[in-house]
């Protein structure tokens, strides 16, 4: 099977769905001739034309709101936010409108749209090219929030998101765009939204993560194996709704859990996962649920030494795993 990068898998997914379904179109800033600032839509403008690969004015309220209106009319918009950080002007449209339309009309109207955006740090992009905002969208019932960790999942999950009858918020790790490479089948296939996967089998502790951090967790787990400690790594894939069964099953098996996110620690998704484990697997816990995350700063500094110092990495994860294993 061909090896592809995360960004190629994303492009594949959109191309495949646009070829299959004439209702699918992309709108956003610089998605057209330029092909997106990360080239996610490279070539699509040539192939599908302006109507279906539409450069919008600089207004995220409009990108989201127009996508919502078109989706209510039966189209399948893919709204690209140039960076997750810049999706916040559209936050009202996404949570007060997109998330509520099916429920508030008791199914009369719905919003089959995807909002995609690059997220995550590590590229020295500073405060507004580094954020993790998944928890903000996950908080509102009615939105699904998906973050792939592999190129395979990226393609399968994005195709599933485009076909989903409800609004899906889809975040792609920008540092992973070219770093993450794995086997991606040609043609179309879906990976189910709402199902986590076991990225690495293990017995003594569970590590739950997603996105780029997932790879650091697997690396750390492999190193830990050399000390004879077997860690299971869970790739959430979907942040909301969370796959509680997968989380609980793993914790019941291992009795210990470490949660790793790139987001700042407080009020990140790690809290909800901890609460679920508490409510549903407390008796199985042989130690506290621990967390590795970015310290609470208002933004990521541009200064690379500071950025590196703040971000989770394999070593920090390994230290936490050892601490938990020895607990």
């Amino acid at each position, binding site marked *: 099977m061909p090896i592809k990068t995360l960004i190629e898998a994303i492009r594949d997914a959109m191309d495949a769905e646009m070829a299959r379904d004439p209702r699918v*179109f992309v709108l956003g800033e610089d998605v057209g001739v330029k092909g997106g600032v990360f080239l996610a839509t490279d070539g699509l403008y040539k192939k599908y034309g302006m*109507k279906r690969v539409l450069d*919008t*004015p600089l*207004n995220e*309220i*409009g990108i*989201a*709101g*127009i*996508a*919502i*209106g*078109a*989706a*209510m*009319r*039966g*189209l399948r*918009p893919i709204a690209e936010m140039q960076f997750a950080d810049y999706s916040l*002007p559209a936050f*009202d*449209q996404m949570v*007060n*409108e997109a998330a*509520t*339309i*099916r*429920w*508030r*009309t*008791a*199914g*009369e*109207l*719905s919003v089959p749209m995807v909002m995609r955006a690059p997220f995550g740090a590590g590229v020295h992009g500073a405060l507004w090219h580094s954020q993790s905002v998944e928890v903000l969208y996950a908080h509102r*019932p*009615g939105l*699904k929030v998906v973050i792939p960790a592999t190129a395979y999942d990226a393609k399968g999950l994005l195709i599933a998101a485009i076909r989903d*009858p*409800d609004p899906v918020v889809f975040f792609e790790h920008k540092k992973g765009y070219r770093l993450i490479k794995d086997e991606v089948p040609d043609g179309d296939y879906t990976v189910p939204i709402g199902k986590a996967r076991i990225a690495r089998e293990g017995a003594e502790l569970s590590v739950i993560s997603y996105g780029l951090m997932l790879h650091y967790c697997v690396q750390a787990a492999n190193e830990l194996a050399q000390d004879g400690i077997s860690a299971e790594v869970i790739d959430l894939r979907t942040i909301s709704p969370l796959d509680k069964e997968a989380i609980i099953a793993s914790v019941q098996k291992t009795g210990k859990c470490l949660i790793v996110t790139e987001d700042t620690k407080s009020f990140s998704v790690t809290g909800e996962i901890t609460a679920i484990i508490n409510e549903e697997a407390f008796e199985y816990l042989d130690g506290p649920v621990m967390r590795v995350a970015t310290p609470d700063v208002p933004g990521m500094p541009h200064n690379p030494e500071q950025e590196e110092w703040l971000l989770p990495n394999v070593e920090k994860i390994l230290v936490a795993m050892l601490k938990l294993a020895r607990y």
Partner: protein
Amino acid sequence: MNYSHVRHLSLGLHDEDVHELYYKMMLTRAMDNRFGQLNRQGKVLAFASCQGQEGAQVGSAYALAPDDWIALSYREHGVAITRGMSMRDIFAYGYHRDNDPNTKGRQIPGHYGSQKLHILTGSSPVGTQLPHGVGSAYASFYEDKHEATIIYFGDGSTSTGDFHAAANFAAIHKLPVVFLCQNNEWAISVPTKMQFAVHSLVERAHGYGIAGVQVDGTDTLAVFDATKQALAQAYAGEGPTFIEVKCKRLNSHTTEDDQSRYRTKEEIESDRPFDPIKKFIAYMQSADLWDESLAKQVDEKVNAEIEDAQQYAERSPTPKPEEALTHVFAES
């Protein structure tokens, strides 16, 4: 030749249309009055009256073709009624009953939504329906459909970022949109002079390269005419039109508001004459389309509908509490 004494004919309206317009406005007024009473009785829990704006709403909605789409907010009862939403459905909604086809009792009254009637669901956040309406127009453009989308909003809504996004995008792509702005001079208690520095919102529209026209909202036929022309332009692919309908908000903002807190009695009273229904009756008289028996007939028909609808709503079941958990996502 001079049609002035039979103006409606010059607009392509038959005598029956005039009677229909009268009936829809009377029905809207009666429904509006009844909802006000029901609110005081604690049966309808919140309500935004549209009194004074029936001409703007019925006149414009009457110009729409069945295929056209509507985006609205919370005050457009006359639009829903003209579009053909039944009194029973409207009262079931007002009574937040299980058989409310708009929201199943989930929303406060006025946020109509219906696939059948081509009404996109309204909501409380002011301005959000504007990009939705433009997205709807983009869908028509995308699929080369001979349809327009009319977007209803108030003067206050023109200050929102959503309005800015919607107007700008619609203008760039010459989308089939009619921006129907009901300028009732207030955003709750904020008068238009505190909302914008332009004399007319048509100037605001020009700032986007959108054609604009101002109409007297008490002149129902003028609103109909302006909307028809805007729709023709939309169908012809000549882009959006902004219609500023000047009207008065004869009641307080909503049942939660008391306008005497920010307006003098005299001010409020001085608005009373600006009643589109009074003006329409005068027109009917001038056109010999009015007599007491007709008025009586319409009153009886309207009252019967209202009574029937209220009884229907009162005997309708309330949704089961646990049903509030349904329709978060598509049920597979």
